[in-house]
C-alpha cells in the first residue's frame, strides 16, 4: 500500500493543474436543478460528461441511475463502486446560476451534492491525467431519489440489481472534508400531521389549534426517556403550519427523525411516538397522521476494518484531520448488504443546506486525492483480506 500512498503527495498539485475541468463539471452539473424525483436532466448531463471523457461503457440502470464503467485490467476482480446522489433539496424555481470566484463556488446544492457528483464525473479525466489504471472495474454512479421522500430508492435499486458481487464502495458527499463515515445509525424519518376540520358546528366547543396540538405532541415526546445505550435520539427538524396571524391554524406538520445504533430502539421509539400521536388525536378530537417517509437499518464496519484503516491512513497522509460521523445515506445500503463502504467528504464550506451554499475550492483537491487513494487501496486488495 505504501507505494501509492507516497505518490499521493503530488496528487493535490496535479489536480490543481486541471482545476478548470473539475470546476466546469461542478458548474455544468450543479446549475441543472435536480430536486428529488426530478433528476432526469442532471442524470443526462452526468452521462454526457462520462461519454465525452471516453468512459468504456455508459448507460442507465433499470431505475434510470446514470452509470459509467471504466474497465479494469483483471476481469476476475469484482468492481469498485464510486457513488454520489444526484438530487438536491432545491426546486426549479430557485436560481441555479452558480457564482465562481477565486476561492469559492456559490450556489444552491453545491455542497450537497453537486461537487460530489462533479468529482465523479471528473474521475475519468483525472485518472488519465494521473496515469492511473485499476485491476477492478470502476463503476461511476450518480444515483437518483436519495434524499427525503426519495428514501434512497436509486441506490437501493443499484445495489439490489447489480449483477456481480461488489468489491467495495466509496460514497462521496460535498462536505465536510475529514468526514470518514463507516457506520450508519438505524433511522426512521417521519412526519406528524394534525388536521382540523374547517367546518363549524358542535364538533368542538372550543376549536383546537393545530399548532398547539403539535406543541402538546412535542411536550410529550420530550418526556420519552432515551437510553444511553443503545445510543438513541429523536431530532425534531421541521415544523410548519397555519395560514395567517389572526386565524386558528387548521393544519400543521412536524418532521422528525428517530436515530439509534440499534434498529430495535428505533422501532420502540417509533411505537412510543405513535402512541402519543394516537392519544392526542383522541384527546383533542382532531385528525392526526403519523407517516414514515424513509428508514434505514443500522449497519457498520468496525473501526479496525481494513477499508476504514486504509482510508484513515490515506487521509492522515494527506494531512486531513479525521472526523468519524455516521451516515444514513448511500453508505447504509452498501453496509446493509455486507459490502465494505465508506463515505468521504470533499471540501469545506458554509450554508450547507441553504440556497447560498458556498464551497471552498482549494480543500477539494485534497478531498479528491483521498478518494483516489481510497480507490487505490481497495484495488490493491485491502478489503479482500
Amino acid at each position: 500500500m505504501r507505494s501509492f500512498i507516497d505518490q499521493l503527495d503530488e496528487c493535490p498539485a496535479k489536480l490543481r493543474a486541471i482545476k478548470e475541468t473539475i470546476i466546469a463539471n461542478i458548474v455544468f452539473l450543479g446549475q441543472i436543478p435536480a430536486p428529488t424525483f426530478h433528476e432526469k436532466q442532471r442524470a443526462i448531463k452526468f452521462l454526457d460528461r462520462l461519454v465525452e471523457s471516453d468512459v468504456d461503457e455508459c448507460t442507465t440502470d433499470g431505475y434510470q441511475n446514470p452509470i459509467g464503467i471504466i474497465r479494469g485490467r483483471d476481469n476476475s476482480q469484482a468492481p469498485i463502486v464510486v457513488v454520489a446522489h444526484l438530487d438536491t433539496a432545491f426546486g426549479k424555481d430557485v436560481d441555479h446560476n452558480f457564482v465562481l470566484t477565486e476561492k469559492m463556488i456559490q450556489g444552491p446544492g453545491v455542497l450537497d451534492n453537486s461537487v460530489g457528483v462533479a468529482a465523479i464525473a471528473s474521475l475519468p479525466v483525472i485518472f488519465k491525467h494521473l496515469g492511473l489504471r485499476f485491476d477492478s472495474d470502476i463503476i461511476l454512479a450518480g444515483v437518483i431519489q436519495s434524499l427525503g421522500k426519495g428514501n434512497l430508492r436509486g441506490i437501493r435499486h443499484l445495489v439490489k440489481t447489480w449483477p456481480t458481487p461488489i468489491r467495495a464502495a466509496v460514497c462521496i458527499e460535498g462536505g465536510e472534508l475529514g468526514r470518514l463515515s463507516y457506520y450508519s445509525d438505524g433511522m426512521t424519518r417521519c412526519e406528524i400531521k394534525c388536521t382540523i376540520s374547517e367546518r363549524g358546528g358542535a364538533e368542538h366547543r372550543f376549536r383546537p389549534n393545530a399548532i398547539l396540538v403539535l406543541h402538546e405532541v412535542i411536550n410529550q415526546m420530550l418526556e420519552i426517556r432515551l437510553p444511553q445505550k443503545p445510543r438513541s435520539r429523536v431530532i425534531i427538524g421541521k415544523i410548519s403550519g397555519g395560514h395567517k396571524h389572526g386565524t386558528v391554524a387548521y393544519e400543521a406538520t412536524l418532521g422528525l427523525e428517530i436515530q439509534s445504533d440499534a434498529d430495535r430502539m428505533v422501532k420502540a421509539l417509533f411505537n412510543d411516538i405513535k402512541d402519543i400521536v394516537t392519544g392526542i388525536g383522541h384527546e383533542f378530537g382532531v385528525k392526526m397522521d403519523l407517516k414514515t417517509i424513509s428508514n434505514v437499518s443500522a449497519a457498520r464496519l468496525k473501526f479496525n476494518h481494513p477499508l476504514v484503516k486504509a482510508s484513515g491512513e490515506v487521509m492522515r497522509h494527506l494531512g486531513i484531520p479525521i472526523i468519524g460521523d455516521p451516515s444514513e445515506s448511500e453508505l447504509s445500503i452498501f453496509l446493509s448488504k455486507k459490502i465494505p463502504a465508506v463515505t468521504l467528504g470533499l471540501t469545506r464550506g458554509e450554508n450547507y443546506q441553504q440556497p447560498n451554499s458556498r464551497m471552498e475550492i482549494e480543500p477539494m483537491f485534497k478531498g479528491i486525492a483521498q478518494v483516489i487513494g481510497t480507490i487505490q487501496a481497495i484495488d490493491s486488495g485491502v478489503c479482500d483480506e
Partner: protein
Amino acid sequence: MNNDWLKDNTFHYSQFNNIDCLVDEKHKKKLSISLCLPTLNEEKTIAKEIVIMKSELMTRYPLLDEIVVIDSGSTDDTVRIAKSFDAKVHLADDILPNHEKYKGKGENLWKALYICEGDIIIYLDADIKNIHHRFAYGLLGPLLLDDRIKYTKAFYDRPIAIGKSKVRPTGGGRVTELVIRPMFSLFFPELTQILQPLSGEYAGYREIFERIPFPIGYGVETSMILDICEQWGMDVIAQVDLEKRVHRNQDTKALGRMSFVVMKTFLNRLEKLGIVEFKKDIFDQIVQYQLVKNELRPDVLKMAGVERPPICDLAEYRAKFGNCP
C-alpha cells in the same frame, strides 16, 4: 422584402457541436483563434466564463488558442480573479499608450485587436450568468465551415415559430425592439433579418475587424453591422441561435443612455453614407430627469461618440501584424 439571407445565413449552435470537426477545420486552414472578454466590474461572472471556455475549448478540445481579458479599470476583484484562472489580462489604458485613452466597451474591443494573436477573434460579454462553451463554438461554426462567412453574430431567447416545426427567437431586448429595429426598418429593411443586432457576442476574421472603425462605447455593435454590410455585403454575415442567455438586467435610465449612443452612431452612419443630411450639428449629451426632494433635476451626461479608426491605420499595428491586405 427578400428573406433569403434569413434562411441561408441563420444557424443553430447544435449544428456545430461536433467540436472535433471544428478543430480539424481550424488546423486544416492553419488558423489561430482568440477569445476576448471585455470587462468592467464583472467579478461575479468572469471566472465562470474563463473556466468553462478553458476547460471545454482549450483542454478538452484545442479550439481556442488564448483567452484575453481587456479591462476598463474595474474597481472590484475582476482583474485578480481573471488572473487567478490564468487568462491573459490587460488593462485597456496600458494598451497603445501613445494614443489618447478612452473608456468603453468599443475601446476594449478595438485595443483587443492589437493584443490578441488570433486570425479569428471571438468577443463575448463578460456578464453571462449561464455561460456555456456553445457561446464560442456556435459562433465559430459558420466561420470555420462555411467559406462565405466572415462575421457571426449571436441571437437567443424569445421564441416565435418559423415554419411548421422550427422555433426562433424574435429578437432582442428593449433597445433592439424600440430603437434599432425601427431604425433598420426605416433605412435598411434587409438588416431587420438580423434578429439581435445589439447582442454582445460575435466573432469574425481579423481581416474584417481591422478594417472597420470602432465607436468607443455602446455604438460598436451597430456600427459594426452597418460597416461590414457596406464594405463586404450582408452575405459575409451569419447569425447563430445560442438559445438561452441569462444576464444582468439594466434599468430604464441605463437603457436610455444606451439608446442615445446607438441612435447617434446610426445617424452618423446615415450621414456618412449620404442617406440624410443634417442642417446643423446634433448634440452629444443626453438629458434625463430625476426627482430630488420634490424637484425635477436634469441629469446631463456627455457622450461624445468618439470613434477609433480602423486599427490597420495604426503604424504600431502594422508593425506587429504586417500591412493589411
